[in-house]
């Protein structure tokens, strides 16, 4: 167990008098390369860069004070939905029964890499945040669910902490299930409990009855890494980057037509064009952007480029930062063909539980394929099916697919006309967005 603030040499952490937090690092990046270190940060590098984490006092007053600090920081979830972290913690804290914390590093979105990169480069920041979250809600157990690609690194980081006797909370690392919906919070809990990585119905909420029937706090791993820094340097430090209504930084995965695809950390509210510049940009050739994820929203490049990359900034476009994905569609690619491939992929990733999703998504994908191929597309049916599928699953999977397809029809409307006349701007076989190989296509 860590003793307190990094420069605190006293034996016991001070009780009620909260010391002023140490000055945090200025500017960015915050998460990815502590003190300019490249690559993987082991425990020694992590401690040298950030110091020991403070502990949350194990009494209700101390826990509430910590949650209030997180609330003041304005930290929101980085898994896609952007829910305020403090509200989630307070909901779990208000329940009776011993809570459990789940750090969600499943990253089921096939094009997103930010959680894997974070877990590979700064696992201790995530583990710190997980322990802090557990202390804050009074959990005696926390599970870090990791994408298989980084499982070994995170397990090694946990072993390193054990050897250094820095393992306060009962922490364990579990391999995540693969698949698009496996990362949905209730699917993660279902995976841990029953080995079934598919969403469950609400109610009950996970905060009421989740893993082992206990109040469960599920947080994305990036959210927890931010939490680890808020605990060290305070809400004011966290708010020193980004706009006041949505402070902080976030990790983005850039892909598609950018020069250097990859994971970058940017301030929330940075203009979309600046976000792309982090990856080398290539604005002149940009046609459209897919924002948020494969459940996200297509936007026209011209109308998006100078907007802030934030919830408020993208809302007028019907988009959101989601899980931080920004995919750039170059001028010589076909947005309809790309969307048809994504729609078929999303259809294949249905958990298979709810009829409208099971039957509706393949039907929608078939219409898009017909549209992209310029053969026998029925717009009336597509529009009708989108309405019939929207909001009718136990989880938001069908809604995400609907959002994606509707935005494609809006942004690529000229393409829709062109395809109706049998023409497509893209050379045959041109593919930009990666989609995992599908098994038996339904």
């Amino acid at each position, binding site marked *: 167990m860590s003793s307190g603030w990094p420069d605190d040499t006293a034996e016991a952490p001070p009780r009620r008098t909260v010391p002023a937090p140490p000055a945090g690092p200025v500017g960015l990046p915050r998460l990815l390369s502590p003190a300019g270190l490249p690559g993987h940060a082991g425990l020694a590098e992590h401690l040298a860069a950030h110091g020991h984490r403070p502990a949350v006092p194990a009494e209700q007053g101390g826990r509430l004070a910590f949650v209030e600090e997180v609330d003041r920081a304005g930290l929101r979830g980085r898994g896609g939905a952007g829910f305020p972290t403090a509200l989630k913690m307070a909901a779990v804290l208000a329940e009776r029964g011993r809570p459990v914390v789940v750090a969600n590093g499943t990253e089921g979105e096939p094009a997103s890499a930010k959680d894997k990169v974070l877990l590979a480069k700064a696992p201790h920041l995530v583990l710190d945040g997980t322990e802090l979250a557990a202390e804050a809600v009074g959990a005696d157990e926390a599970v870090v669910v990791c994408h298989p690609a980084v499982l070994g690194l995170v397990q090694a980081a946990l072993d390193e902490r054990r050897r250094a006797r820095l393992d306060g909370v009962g922490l364990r690392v579990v391999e995540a299930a693969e698949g698009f919906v496996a990362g949905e919070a209730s699917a993660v809990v279902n995976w841990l409990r029953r080995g079934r990585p598919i969403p*469950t*119905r*609400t109610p009950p909420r996970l905060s009421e009855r989740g893993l082992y029937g206990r109040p469960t706090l599920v947080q994305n791993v990036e959210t927890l890494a931010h939490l680890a820094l808020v605990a060290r340097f305070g809400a004011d430090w966290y708010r020193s980057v980004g706009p006041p209504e949505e402070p902080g930084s976030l990790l983005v995965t850039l892909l598609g037509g950018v020069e250097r695809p990859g994971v970058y950390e940017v301030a929330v509210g940075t203009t979309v064009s600046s976000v792309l510049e982090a990856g080398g940009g290539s604005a002149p050739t940009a046609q459209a952007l897919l924002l948020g994820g494969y459940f996200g929203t297509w936007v026209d490049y011209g109308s998006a480029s100078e907007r802030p990359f934030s919830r408020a900034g993208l809302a007028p476009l019907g988009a959101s930062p989601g899980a931080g994905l920004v995919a750039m569609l170059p001028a010589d690619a076909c947005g309809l063909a790309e969307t048809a491939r994504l729609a078929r992929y999303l259809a294949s990733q249905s958990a298979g*539980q*709810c*009829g*409208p*999703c099971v*039957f*509706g998504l393949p*039907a929608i994908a078939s219409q898009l394929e017909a549209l992209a191929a310029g053969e026998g597309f029925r717009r*009336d049916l597509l529009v*009708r*099916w989108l*309405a*019939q*599928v*929207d*909001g*009718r*699953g*136990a*989880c*938001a999977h069908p*809604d995400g697919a609907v959002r994606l397809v509707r935005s494609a029809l809006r942004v690529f409307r000229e393409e829709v006309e062109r395809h109706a006349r049998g023409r497509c701007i893209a050379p045959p076989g041109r593919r930009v967005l990666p989609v995992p190989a599908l098994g038996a296509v339904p």
Partner: protein
Amino acid sequence: MTRRLLRLRVDPILCDGRGLCAALLPELVGLDDWGFPIVSVEPVAPARLDEARAAVRACPKLALSLVPAELAVRRSDGGVSRPRPG
């Protein structure tokens, strides 16, 4: 005694689209193109409550229920997008 207002809810995981509810309650339950019910999320009129209860009992998958109308409508309640004629 005033009776509480109730509305219909479909559990989308339990439901497998047998369609009995739509046959019994055509005014309150529509079907999508694959035969899955789209229910009205408005409170059920008191005069129709007995029929609605009968439909709830008739559902072979126990997927249809009546819940207090004041309960917030969740996206997964099966009726958010309202029956659409097309």
